[in-house]
């Protein structure tokens, strides 16, 4: 399978990258960092743009400074970072389970939080899409998962984002109108095509982790059939604060690979604040979250299985984090 023709740009700074984007925006462009996800979609002729602006040469975004992670830092580098290992174990767990080791050596955190949503009916070859028919997110005008023409339900497949949302991390973006900072939890939309509120010209430059994360217990669990290569079929990120009396002070549980964006469960979990952690409380929380979850039938495992696994993962993760 060959890549389609495109022009590759190699800017040396964020500013230069944005400038190039403005020059070619009328023809269409994509930013690319690791490219492990985007280029595969290009090979499948999915939403191909004539210009690719590579962020690889940009030095200003490729390091970790304390709780600020440059967007071009690879997932492998995050997995091995001592400060994050000690203070944000959940992110290390999430990043070290992305794809395969080959992917993690190349893929970046910026790319992972922006990873395209996935769907059985979308991530297919052009020939595949010509038989039976293509979908909203590719070149046709109807959804193949739910027969309707309004919105796309492709699955949000980032491993790092649910964990970042669970600790209320922020993304620093830079675009033609300058810099801004947005909460990760407010960044994503319900639409599997639009996916997020990033302006076309904007680049995520930094992931900002709140200092208080160090006081939380964080963890990440996911189900995939193979322990490498596979995208998540369902995932759970949790951030907890348990006080001396074993009471829940703070709890955030975010689901990945279930809907079109990282799904917060604040309404469910808030009602448990102040409760003493116990096996029965953990069971109750997990069951409630499982009951509320609504996977779409667009990955290779049945919906019923994935829904069941929400509860299993939730329970296992909470038990692990609280040593219950």
């Amino acid at each position, binding site marked *: *399978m*060959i890549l*389609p*023709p495109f022009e590759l740009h190699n800017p040396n700074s964020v500013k230069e990258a944005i400038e190039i984007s403005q020059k070619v925006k009328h023809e269409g462009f994509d930013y690319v960092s690791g490219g492990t996800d985007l280029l595969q979609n290009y090979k499948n002729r999915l939403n191909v743009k004539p210009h690719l602006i590579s962020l690889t040469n940009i030095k200003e975004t490729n390091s970790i400074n304390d709780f600020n992670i440059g967007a071009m830092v690879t997932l492998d580098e995050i997995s091995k970072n001592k400060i994050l290992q000690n203070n944000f174990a959940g992110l290390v767990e999430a990043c070290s389970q992305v794809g*395969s080791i080959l992917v993690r050596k190349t893929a970046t955190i910026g790319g992972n939080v922006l990873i395209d949503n996935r769907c*059985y009916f979308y*991530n*297919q*070859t052009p*020939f*595949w899409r*010509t*038989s*039976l028919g293509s979908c909203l997110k590719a070149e046709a005008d109807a959804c193949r998962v739910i027969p309707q023409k309004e919105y796309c339900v492709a699955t949000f497949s980032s491993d790092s984002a649910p964990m970042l949302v669970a600790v209320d991390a922020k993304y620093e973006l830079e675009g033609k109108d300058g810099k801004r900072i947005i909460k990760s939890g407010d960044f994503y939309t319900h639409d599997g095509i639009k996916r997020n509120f990033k302006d076309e010209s904007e680049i995520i430059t930094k992931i900002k982790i709140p200092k208080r994360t160090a006081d939380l217990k964080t963890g990440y669990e996911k*189900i995939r*059939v*193979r*322990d*490498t*290569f*596979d*995208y998540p079929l369902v995932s759970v990120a949790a951030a907890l604060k348990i006080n001396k009396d074993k009471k829940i002070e703070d709890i955030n549980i975010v689901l990945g690979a279930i809907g079109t964006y990282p799904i917060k469960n604040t309404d469910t979990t808030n009602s448990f604040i102040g409760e003493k952690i116990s096996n029965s409380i953990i069971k109750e929380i997990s069951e409630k979250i499982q009951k509320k979850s609504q996977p779409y039938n667009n990955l*290779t*495992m*049945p919906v*019923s*299985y994935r829904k*069941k*696994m929400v509860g*299993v993962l939730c329970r296992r993760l909470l038990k692990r984090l609280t040593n219950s």
Partner: protein
Amino acid sequence: MSHTVGKKTPLVDGAQKVTGRAVYIDDIVLPGKVMLIGKILRSPFAHAKIKKIDYSQAKKLKGVFAVATAKDSENRFGVLPITKDETAFAIDKVTFIGDQIAAVAATDEETAIRALDLIKVEYEELPPILKPEKSLAPISHPDQKIQPWSKYEGNIFKTVNQSFGDVEKALKESAVVKNGKFSFNGVTHAFTEPMGVIANYGSDKKLTMWSSTQVPHYLHRALSEVMEMPMHRIKVIRPYVGGGFGGKSDPFPHEMAAAILSKKTGKPVKILFDRDEVFISNHGRHPTKTEMQMSATKDGEFTSLEIDALIDGGAWGSFGVITTYYNGVLSLGPYKIKNFNYNGNRVYTNKPASGAMRGHGAVNSRFAVETLIDEIAEDIGFDPCDLRIQNAYEPNSITANGFRITSCGIKECIEKVKIASNWDKKFKKMPYGKGIGIGCGFYISGSALPINWERMPQSTVHVKIDFDGGVTVHSLAAEIGQGSDTVLAQCVGEVLKCDMSRIRIYSKNTDTAPIDLGSYSSRVTFMAGLAAKRAAEEIKKQILNAASKIMSSPVENLELRNDQIIELKTKSSISFNEAVREALHDSGALHGKGHYQAPNLNPGLPRVNELRGKESEKGAPMGGSHKGAAAGLSPSYSMGAYVCQLEVDPETGLVNVEKVWAAHDCGKALNPLAVEGQIEGCIHMGLGQALMESFDYNRNTGRIENPNFLDYRCIPPTMMPDVDVFMVESADPEGPFGAKEAGEGPILPILPAVANAIYDAVGVRLRNLPMTPEKIISAIAKKK
């Protein structure tokens, strides 16, 4: 160095491969030529009439040299001469999603892709027939017939009914009867190198074809028929091949398309498949529904076996006649089963064709047999290993259907893995979630009846030695990564007792290679190995005669050893080269030829007129005289037993296979390194089918839903268990140096061993493959 066989020998072409110097189809550039790139237009419908094809716009596109369609060749071909149902391009109607409609030759791939978009095809859609059950039903309109030529009712491709002994009587005498309905999703080979071909039709009106194939000879024949050219004007070259596993053992339409395009343009044309095209070409293991019943006495004697198999062949025949037989008869070993009924139907459906795949025809039925044996064992209170040993054949036995089992190491295999796995301490004794299970296998070592019923050797090898002292071996056995070049070199080296570095294998080119039917049905080591051994023996005689002259000693006193000829009495010696030069001095050429043809078939065997009862090999005629007696008939049978230990997560259904103890009776391991590799590779492939690999079809359209390696899941290296390999050497009386096959049979035991271990771990019997996490947790939930 006195022996070359029996030694761990790195593959002779290994260094070329690991250093990136091996030349595969994709690497081939013809010097001084403009090579065109071919791309194929495929049907988006599973079943439709082709009303019109308009490629005028495509032809006008700059860079496009030719467009080919069915008009360019309507000749039928197929690997079995009795079921030729394939054509280069679909004629009048398409029969599966991906059927070839047309092909374009252009200056580059991008142009060819653009040209395909410009070809307009008008279809009249027909309802696709996707369920194999539906194909059994009679048709009410000719349009419903997927392949019009088939002589059976409905869309049945082949029916086999066989009965041996008296099952009804046996059932009356049985204490336990177990039965079950099993279903098996299709799986595919997942070889590393996608198919690829280069055709070059020259101004001399000769055709050269390079193709990634396991069967250069069958390709040669098919090209001759499709292109209407005599075989001597066609040359097939097999470059390095990145795996086959049965998936490259048919002649293919894309090979015909390349030949046609090259003839039309007068230029070389290369077609390389994308991975989804490999899935579309499939020819993988048949999706199958199997009903099976097995009975035994309370003393643990197997009394009867009944099999009813519905086999989904997809749109073409391929090896299907053989598949239909194998689903039954290959279940008749390694256990003594006197009473047997088999009813098998292979049907056409509007899906990509199924075909031969490692363990061809035997894997699915084997899974069911070995599952039922464990159920019987539990019922009558036998240990599953002991029950298998009790019923296993001894050497020199005849099966109910007339298979001649010569060497037979099955009992030793079972004993080996039972002891090594510490079975007695583990079976039924491990905590919930942990389990151990056993499975066995039985497979052919080459088919005694060749695909083309002709009196022609199944393998021939030529050996030549020239003044440089180099030993050149010519064969058409296809090296596809399995080590066939290496094993031929070892066989020749063992006879000539010369250094392996002297031996050069030429096995790529039909112009210079003598006939060999190719690399399928686990035949190469046995058949080509024997041919190589015989060719070397012929040349050895000439060398010894020459040495006898030089050394003035009778041949009986001479022995080849370590690149020398030794006079046994005087202990004097001359070098290999000295003897060779003397021999060449007298003759100008040192040639040896050897061939193999399977032992006589039963003279009473109907229909195989040319072959029956004719003299070919030593030994009494083999096989029964009933219809289909030659199917599954092999000069020798391999067998094996595996124990698998695993852990099931009862909440997620995920299975972690921890360890496999694998014993395989390969007669004699000519290259233990390769045998070990084959066994480990078989376990990898078998675990895939057992746990996760599945060819998923859209229920309404027949489209393959997962034609990529993300959604079609093979076992990743991180999930491969530890494997302890035990090579059991039963010294086959007819195989080369005692050897028999080790390439396909070793896949059989692993699938049921996993299922039986899952039962031991969590108490559920799974009868549908793959045994995915959701099937496991729902079975556990049902049990509760």
